[in-house]
């Protein structure tokens, strides 16, 4: 376990090497450094993980303090890594799934300009993300939090020569920054109230300092929730994720599906004690998740871009995690986080393969009949899509989503449960719509088959993990997160299971009727009056972009236009203009004319003598 710091160090060194050597590296060397550093980090994680599980009892933890980061008065923030069941799970997802995505990216990005730049950003991202989950205090967590935000910005705008990509990057950065401001305020409140940023101390001190429903704890948890919804693309800060698909596809897989967007879930799970002291806010977490998963599900139904479908499904799945957090199903949320990382990474990587096979075409209506050309990708898509739609028993997504729905039902929050069930229904429809349109029907493009070791290995591994095999992975969360308890858990088990299976299959049947073959019914709906009215609204994410455009962007630009000359700066312009005035007044006297100098000497003498005289007269009387 002493090697824990290496999980962070390898990607950081990889980043430094790639960023300093830049174009001096060949593509192969850049790939070796970029993928190898994550591979070493993943190996370290495996070693540390085995060591941890063998030597530390359940609910135990291992802390490695590297050095003192800040020390001001009573405030003491260490640069310390904290390993427990939760961070080990996250670490495994980040380095494990991250490694396979890097491997895939080394194939996907081949021949692109800025190959080594891509890997330097990716390595920096992994380093920041590891710091985020291992940091033992909120300051370090925030450092990693901002680091991943920066990398997200850099990678969304990776193809910077296209203006739209730059705008998508700015949008993602700005919207998440709104959440981060809330989170910073939350951290300030916690520090002001508890006097420490150490997460373990906070978990101990919070129940002693605050009673349940104390205004300060409500404020603190609300602010933390604000940070979480920003990072995890939940209502009302969800608008950036769909545009974030402008980045390369491996980036969407790693950052905008598997790891970074789940940081909000991790944050809430990490500070669960604070949220448990504010039950109303915890319920709000669930409500936010439920609304987001419904809205994102509706939007995903009408998307035409293969990656945007997956982006909306990501929002929707994180909505499930929030829902689980809200009903107190902590370990179900983390379980779904892990399984979602598997199958969504698989889906995004397969989508990347589809995009490559179709010569960088992303519109699903220009694809079709691809299953004969790329059968392996089709298999990946089937398993990944099945997991997303919670296809019963065969896929890992079924087990995690079923756990969430069951615990939501058993906790008594039936409204949230029904929302989740409706969401599952729509998930099933849009997932199979995607599969039917892309892989079946008539061929519209000439797709070429694809080969390569670094292409099929990541897909293969994630494919296996997305089947029921993935559900055998045990997460050592006992003692770290409170266990879910409910009297009605056992008796409602079969009811919820049957309902979930039925919903998924009915959704599949609907998708078959609507989107198989000619898609007559779907076309007639979208061409009817209601369809014409609704589908543009849904396609643009239910009008949130439009709303925010009018609410924030336009007024901001308006004020900026009014204040083009910057009224406040005028005030500060006074200082230099005064100095300039003095300067010109003084430089008039330095004119090089001897007579002028003589005059000023005489005047000065007169003034001094006059002053002496006046003083003498005043003081002698």
């Amino acid at each position: 376990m002493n090697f824990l710091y290496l999980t962070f160090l390898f990607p950081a060194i990889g980043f430094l090497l790639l960023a300093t050597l830049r174009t001096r590296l060949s593509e192969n060397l850049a790939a070796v450094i970029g993928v190898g550093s994550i591979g070493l980090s993943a190996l370290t994680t495996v070693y540390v993980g085995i060591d941890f599980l063998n030597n530390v009892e359940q609910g135990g933890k291992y802390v490695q303090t590297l050095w003192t980061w800040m020390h001001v008065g009573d405030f003491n923030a260490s640069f310390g890594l904290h390993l427990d069941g939760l961070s080990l799970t996250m670490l495994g997802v980040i380095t494990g799934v991250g490694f396979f995505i890097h491997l895939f990216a080394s194939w996907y990005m081949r021949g692109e300009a800025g190959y080594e730049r891509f890997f330097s950003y990716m390595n920096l991202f992994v380093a920041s993300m590891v710091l985020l989950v291992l940091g033992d205090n909120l300051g370090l967590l925030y450092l990693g939090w901002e680091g991943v935000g920066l990398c997200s910005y850099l990678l969304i705008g990776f193809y910077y020569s296209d203006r739209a990509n730059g705008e998508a990057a700015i949008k993602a950065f700005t919207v998440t920054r709104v959440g981060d401001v809330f989170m910073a305020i939350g951290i300030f409140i916690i520090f002001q109230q508890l006097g420490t940023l150490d997460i373990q101390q906070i978990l101990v001190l919070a129940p002693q300092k605050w009673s349940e429903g104390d205004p300060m704890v409500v404020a603190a948890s609300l602010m933390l929730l604000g940070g979480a919804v920003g990072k995890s693309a939940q209502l009302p800060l969800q608008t950036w994720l769909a545009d974030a698909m402008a980045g390369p596809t491996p980036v969407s897989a790693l950052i905008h599906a598997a790891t970074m967007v789940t940081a909000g879930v991790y944050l809430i799970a990490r500070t669960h004690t604070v949220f448990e002291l504010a039950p109303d806010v915890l319920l709000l977490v669930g409500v936010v998740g439920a609304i987001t998963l419904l809205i994102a599900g509706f939007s995903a139904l009408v998307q035409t871009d293969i990656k945007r479908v997956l982006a909306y499904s990501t929002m929707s799945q994180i909505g499930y995690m929030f829902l689980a957090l809200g009903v107190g199903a902590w370990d179900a949320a983390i379980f779904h986080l892990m399984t979602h990382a598997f199958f969504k990474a698989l889906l995004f990587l397969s989508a990347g393969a589809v995009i490559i096979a179709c010569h960088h075409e992303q519109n699903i209506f220009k694809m079709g009949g691809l299953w004969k050309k790329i059968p392996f990708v089709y298999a990946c898509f089937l398993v990944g899509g099945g997991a997303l739609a919670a296809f019963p028993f065969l896929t890992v997504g079924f087990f995690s989503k079923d756990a969430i729905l069951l615990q939501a039902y058993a906790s008594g929050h039936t409204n949230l449960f029904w929302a989740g069930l409706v969401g599952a229904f729509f998930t099933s429809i849009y997932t199979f719509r995607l599969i039917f349109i892309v892989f079946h029907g008539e061929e519209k493009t000439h797709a070429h088959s694809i080969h390569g070791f670094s292409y099929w290995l990541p897909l293969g591994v994630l494919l296996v993990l997305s089947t029921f095999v993935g559900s055998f992975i045990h997460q050592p969360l006992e003692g770290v997160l409170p266990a879910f308890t409910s009297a009605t858990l056992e008796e409602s088990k079969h009811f919820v299971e049957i309902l979930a299976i039925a919903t998924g299959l009915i959704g599949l049947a609907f998708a078959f009727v609507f989107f198989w073959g000619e898609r007559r019914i779907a076309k007639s709906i979208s061409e009817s009056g209601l369809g014409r009215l609704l589908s543009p609204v849904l396609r643009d994410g239910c009008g949130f972009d439009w709303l925010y455009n009018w609410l924030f962007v336009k007024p901001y630009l308006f004020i900026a236009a009014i204040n083009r000359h910057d009224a406040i700066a005028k005030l500060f312009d006074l200082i230099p203009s005064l100095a300039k005035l003095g300067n010109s007044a003084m430089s008039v006297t330095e004119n090089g004319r001897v007579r002028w100098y003589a005059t000023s000497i005489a005047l000065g003498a007169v003034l001094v003598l006059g002053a002496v005289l006046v003083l003498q007269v005043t003081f002698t009387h």
Partner: protein
Amino acid sequence: MIAIPMEQGLAVAGVLFTLGLVGVMVRRNILFLLMCLEVMMNAAALAFIVAGSRWGAPDGQVMFILILTLAAAEASIGLAIVLQFYRRHHSLDIDVASEMRG
């Protein structure tokens, strides 16, 4: 012999000094400048004499001789400068010599 009151002597010295100073300030001809400087020095010397006679001290007359020597030295150096000045600028206007810009 009627003693001249100190106040009147000093007033004459003051008037002379002011005349010389005004001359330095307003004239541009370098010869007039030299003459005005001479006038100012003589005004100062006169003030010393008046003060010396008022307190019956010889120091005033010592200072006068000193100033006279000074004035002679100054006149010789000043005239040499005027000569050089005229050779270089073909003018006696002192403002022509200003080479500062800005």
